[in-house]
């Protein structure tokens, strides 16, 4: 294996960002303050955008930043502020029997890890400069070509979601 094929910088970057994402995700599900959880979620989502860049999917990374870090987080903060009077630490954010969730998720993680390592092992991704470089033009040809019908359906889903959210949240 040639040293230039190892992509040391990308691997180091992946490790750092992945560690940051895992720690932040654990904080999201364990922290006792809803606003803090939303802010930790920002770190996870931004880290995911960085990983998409490592996978040479620039357009999805930009969309991730615009939609998730921009719009969805604002929605979450709105939801937090509209549904509770006090913004601070709370003791009872967990279920009564939250302890069962720990072995369930650990078991699931074990099974998935075993299957993935068994199935993919040390298979390597093609290097980004070879063939995975995706111009946005190809992506738009894909969306507006073979996947045009799901695109239409998706625009209807968004329309219905907007109308539904207004109808549900409106005060009569």
């Amino acid at each position: 294996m040639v040293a230039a094929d190892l992509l040391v910088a990308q691997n180091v970057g992946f490790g750092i960002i992945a560690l940051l994402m895992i720690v932040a995700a654990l904080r999201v599900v364990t922290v006792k303050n809803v606003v803090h959880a939303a802010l930790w979620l920002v770190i996870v989502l931004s880290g995911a955008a960085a990983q998409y860049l490592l996978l040479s999917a620039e357009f999805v990374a930009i969309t991730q930043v615009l939609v998730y870090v921009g719009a969805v987080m604002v929605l979450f903060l709105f939801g937090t502020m509209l549904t509770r009077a006090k913004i601070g630490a709370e003791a009872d954010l967990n279920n009564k029997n939250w302890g069962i969730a720990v072995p369930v998720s650990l078991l699931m993680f074990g099974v998935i890890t075993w299957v993935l390592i068994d199935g993919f092992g040390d298979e390597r991704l093609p290097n980004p400069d070879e063939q995975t470089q995706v111009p946005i033009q190809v992506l738009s040809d894909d969306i507006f070509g073979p996947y045009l019908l799901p695109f239409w359906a998706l625009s209807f889903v968004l329309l219905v979601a907007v109308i539904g959210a207004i109808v549900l949240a409106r005060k009569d």
Partner: protein
Amino acid sequence: MLTVQFLLLGAVLFCIGVYGVLARKNAVMVLMSIELILNSVNLNLLAFSSRLGSIDGNTFALYVIAVAAAEVGVGLAMVLLIYRNRRTIALDELSDMKG
């Protein structure tokens, strides 16, 4: 880079999200955990897109992002409605349909 490192990161995020959905009582926190799960799915889709040298994974990831945005909008509207009617969003107190 290995394929499996991205898939494993996705698996970690997915399991953390599943833990959050199962363990959290606050409805907004459950929605946040669902976002973690959807992001791990996107990571898998893009990893396979890069592995196969195909663009379809990127398209699917974009569609997942759009559906997730719609889901959060409707979900938070429902949470707001529940809060307005019951003055709480603790999920274990919404047990009217329990037999």
